[in-house]
């Protein structure tokens, strides 16, 4: 196995995570991500004695609360945290380039 990922492999996982990396970071992560992924690969050698999966350790079945109207959050308060807004609307840049 190679000691580091290719530049393209790093860019692929960065793209999956929607994270833009600098050139310097790409170089650093080529090694670091490889180290981490190799370590994670140890799971392939584990012999299973059980097929059942445990997704959550919660011991009770999740129950839904009554569907009754509660207190509303104040839209003005919510909008204070929004980086770009117009009235009570959140502004985002164009979704699709030409």
């Amino acid at each position, binding site marked *: 196995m190679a000691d580091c990922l290719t530049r393209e492999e790093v860019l692929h*996982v*960065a793209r*999956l*995570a*929607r*994270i*833009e*990396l*600098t050139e310097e*970071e790409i170089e*650093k*992560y080529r090694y*670091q*991500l490889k*180290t*981490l*992924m190799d*370590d*994670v690969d*140890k*799971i*392939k050698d*584990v012999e*299973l*004695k*059980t*097929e*059942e*999966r*445990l*997704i*959550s*350790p*919660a*011991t*009770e079945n*999740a*129950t*839904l*609360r009554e569907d009754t109207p509660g207190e509303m*959050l*104040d839209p003005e*308060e*919510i909008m*204070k*945290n*929004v*980086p*770009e807004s117009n009235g009570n609307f*959140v502004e*985002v*840049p*164009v*979704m*699709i*380039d030409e």
Partner: protein
Amino acid sequence: MNKYLDLSIKEINELLKNKKIKPIDLVNEAIERIENSDLNAFITLDKEGAIKKAKELEDKEVDNLLFGIPIALKDNIVTKGLLTTAASHILDNFIPIYDATVVEKINDANMIIIGKTNMDEFAMGSTSRTSYYGAPLNPWDKTRVTGGSSGGSAACVSARLVPFALGSDTGGSIRQPSSYCGIVGMKPTYGRVSRYGLIAFGSSLDQIGPMTRNVYENACLLNVISGRDDKDLTSSHAKVEDFTRKIGNSIKGMKIAVPNFFMSDIVDDEVKDKVNEIIELLKKEGASIDYIDIDYLENAVTLYQIIGMGEASSNLARFDGVKFGFSIKEPKNVDDLYGKTRGEGFGEEVKRRIMVGSYLLSGENAKIYYNKALQIRNGIRESFKKAFEKYDLIIGPNATTVAYSQDEGLNDPLRSFYDDALVFPANMAGLPGMNVPIGFNNDNLPIGLQIIGNVWDEATMYQLASFIEGKLELNLDPREVK
């Protein structure tokens, strides 16, 4: 300077009841201590809010033991109107619009929130060094790490800046820094404490818990924050009990197990020696000790990497620069907004974990890694279940070493995982785990014992922890060492 904050909670409570002091005296003292401290334990000190609350309490009856006592909260617990950053640049200016359920409970108990503590960014780390605000320092030796991720909470309680703090524990983040800083920390049973308002990292692992100077006060704080919350579907309907009720009971006849893996080569000898001393002490007191094997313990690091990073990559998708927090200026399009905001806003460790987590969950990988991890996770839980049919408690070390140098292991992406090899299993199985200090190494650095209990059995853990605390009578105040 007054020293009311050095008194026990019971003593402070008496003084408040008899009107010898007012809550404001405690708040002023805490503020003075925090402002004179160079530990970098806090990200935000809420002087104004704390003073206001203390004044309000002056007209109220002292109705419970924790009334008027200052408490610090880890900065991933949201507080209405008070900056909450999770120690990340991406939440630079985030002012929550609601309180976490634990915050409501603390307010209902008339405790006083003094500020928000430093931590690893989004609780990802074992040293608190991934904080955007710089690492907190260990009160026992400032050149060493506090542990993490609840490092600020551990440091401020250890240094006696405040008597109480809350931390969160996804893979040891309460227990390991408590061990490094010489305090008592409890990660309760999964579902014991509401996670509503805890900034999610690994939703099937996260749990909020108390960090305190001693065992009794820890149980008192767990009394306050426990209970069913309709806003967290995974919180349990189990009745809130008095967690102090077994404190003081004899441990004679108690059946205790030590997993062989917990005393294996991965643990430093000086840590094992202390744990062995405790084992002898417990035997002498009439408890039985058996060495047992728990399946898959040696795989807990790998499991945590896969489940922890997987859940994190999904949970942290919400930080996109659109609705709150840091956002880049004049993005070209929405992809540009996401990519650059997250690229600039997240730190190195967080980006690494999100990227690997996204990779592990993508396409076929989900089967190879995540699915298999969940199967092993079930195996761990089943094995613990079996052990608890026979034993009351499981013990071992929390950390494989004592607190190490701030410069050590900085460029090792695996270090933060292997530091926590012994604390992951409890999170995987949803079991309660705690730290109780059991002594010091030759450099006078604290060593802690991990106690793992059966689900919903925190009271028995406090019983054992309190017995050990009473027998050892350690001086756990780092101010008296220098």
